[in-house]
């Protein structure tokens, strides 16, 4: 269920959408942009730094401060992480230090976050759309009874100082812009790598505000027994690969998917696929690319037999060069690809792979060169 869950056509202007009441007096006090900093096992999740970059732009537009919210058990570690937050753009860091915050659990983190919001009243609160961020955001928004826009792909401030949050809708076939007009804070989550990593500015400083949690371990029902880290070999390096080759239903069968893997191998890249092929089981779920899968920002992205619905596009829009192979000349992928060919991917891929391998091989002398001699 989404912020626009019922697949009904968009409402015409004149309905509630255009009705923006003057913000109630008690909500006018809500100021500043906050980013929840996902800090686990001694490291800040990259998505939190990406959000500091995006939050910085929003705060500057609003003329307010940007704050990071850091929670954990070790005060010394949190202070170190706060330094990173300042260097990536935060003016303020709210610190909540308590032994019960050693590992992420919904209950104490929800309390810490909602206490902070109620005490310091931010107008915007951003979280990463990770397993942690999504677990926390829903609880916080429901506790505060405010609006939450999930998995946004673009954030902006409109003329009336409201947050305009854009996300795919209708299963990823269209985009919609969502506002939380008469409630504060305006909450949004953003998936990792959708926003670019901001530049670090070494030596940039900010101020720290400490806040207590007042929660005893005995009062928390859920206990963390263990954390089993993923083995490196289990992790697809897809999200961080420089070259990605992906396939869609246009490959027609699971057997034909080997053409995609083969090309990825020749290019020293990673392979992936669209949502329908992930659902068909042609690729593992962690190799799905798009809104509900991985967001990638490679130097080269080759999409074979992928139509390019929004839900896919938002996952690849950050690629430097997008190459599309599709037999349908009207496929939406040609609207955002840089180079395209209207061809059957099953036929084209093997020839293309061979030609590439030949060109990249040391002993290869281009035919054109021989002819010229």
């Amino acid at each position, binding site marked *: 269920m989404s912020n626009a869950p019922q697949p009904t056509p968009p409402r015409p202007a004149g309905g*509630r959408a255009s009705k923006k009441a003057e913000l109630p007096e008690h909500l006018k006090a809500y100021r500043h942009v906050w980013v929840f900093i996902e800090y686990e096992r001694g490291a800040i999740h990259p998505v939190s730094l990406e959000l500091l970059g995006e939050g910085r732009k929003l705060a500057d537009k609003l003329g307010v401060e940007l704050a990071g919210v850091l929670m954990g058990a070790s005060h010394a570690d949190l202070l170190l992480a706060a330094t990173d937050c300042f260097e990536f753009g935060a003016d303020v860091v709210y610190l909540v230090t308590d032994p019960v915050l050693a590992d992420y659990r919904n209950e104490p983190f929800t309390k810490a976050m909602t206490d902070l919001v109620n005490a310091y009243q931010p107008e915007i609160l951003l979280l990463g759309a990770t*397993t*942690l961020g999504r677990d926390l955001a829903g*609880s916080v928004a429901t506790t505060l009874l405010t*609006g939450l826009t999930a998995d946004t792909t673009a954030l902006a401030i409109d003329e009336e100082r409201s947050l305009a949050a854009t996300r795919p*809708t209708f299963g990823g076939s*269209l985009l919609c812009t969502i506002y939380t007009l008469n409630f504060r804070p305006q909450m949004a989550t953003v998936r990792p790598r959708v926003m670019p990593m901001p530049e670090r500015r070494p030596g940039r400083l900010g101020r720290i505000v400490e806040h207590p949690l007042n929660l005893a371990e005995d009062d928390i029902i*859920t206990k963390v027994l263990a954390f089993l880290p993923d083995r490196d070999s289990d992790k697809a390096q897809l999200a961080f690969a420089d070259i990605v080759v992906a396939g869609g239903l246009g490959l027609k069968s699971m057997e034909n998917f080997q053409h995609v893997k083969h090309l990825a191998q020749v290019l020293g890249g990673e392979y992936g696929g669209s949502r329908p092929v992930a659902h068909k089981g042609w690729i593992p779920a962690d190799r799905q690319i798009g809104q509900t899968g991985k967001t990638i920002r490679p130097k080269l992205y080759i999409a074979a037999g992928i139509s390019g619905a929004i839900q896919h596009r938002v996952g690849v829009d950050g690629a430097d060069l997008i190459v599309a192979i599709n037999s349908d000349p009207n496929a939406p992928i040609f609207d955002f690809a840089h180079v395209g060919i209207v*061809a059957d991917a099953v036929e084209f891929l093997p020839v293309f792979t061979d030609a590439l391998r030949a060109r990249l091989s040391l002993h290869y002398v281009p035919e054109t060169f021989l002819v010229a001699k």
Partner: protein
Amino acid sequence: MNTKMHIVVCLKQVPDSAQIRVHPVTNTIMRQGVPSVINPYDLFALEEALRLRDKVGAAEVTVLTMGPPMAEDSLRKALAYGADRAVLLTDRQFAGSDTLATTYALASAIRKIGATWGLPHVVFTGKQTIDGDTAQVGPGIAKRLNYNQLTYVSRIASFEAEAATIMVERRAEGGVQVLTTRLPVLMTMLEDSNEIRRGTMADALRAAQAEIIKWSAVDAGIPELTKCGLRGSPTVVKKVFAPTARAEKAQQIPVSGRSWSEMADDMIQAIFTRRPGLETDLLARTENF
């Protein structure tokens, strides 16, 4: 536990997203003929609920959905998979609900289900839907019911009905978290955590004739209608639009009258002309072999 254990599964009927198309001229959704299915992620929740019922023995599974009258189809399917009872929350009051309004209605209905057939010990949802993709409804229901919340559960490691405790593995960032908590609990199930069973013939026959319990907002005992639907939604959809094409059209590799290998060479040339650094990188990598 002295009474039967009660498990509630929240399902959503969604359009089969693989078949949604956007009208090329009007940019509106073409929904004609697009079949509806149970949200695929919810099937993992349903199967886990059925497994838990089978394990505990004295237990019942109630499936709940909020949606238009035609959502009855999905509930009937859930009964055919083996669910014991189906409740459809359907009312025009719910139209336009965002996640907050949705969780208000669903949590209210779960309370009514609890009052009618026994307090649910476990509520299951899928990790997210394929049409909304927010993953926020499960956590919202948990908060409203004040249930312990376990999201992205990949495995129930142990379940002690008598002690009312549960131990699960859940997908976390960079690893798997092993957690224990007490009932009542709301779990959102990760994909591939199980595989939906083939329902029995007996269940199929029962499902075909079963009564789907239909509740309006009033039937469900929802106290404040202003918290439902569009009125109860803090978020407002201001515009829905198709993405704009890139200003610069894609460079099309000519195909007519060209052989496959000529097309491949043209494509390679186009890529390396636009990104000369790529070829250098790739050649450097080859030399390192």
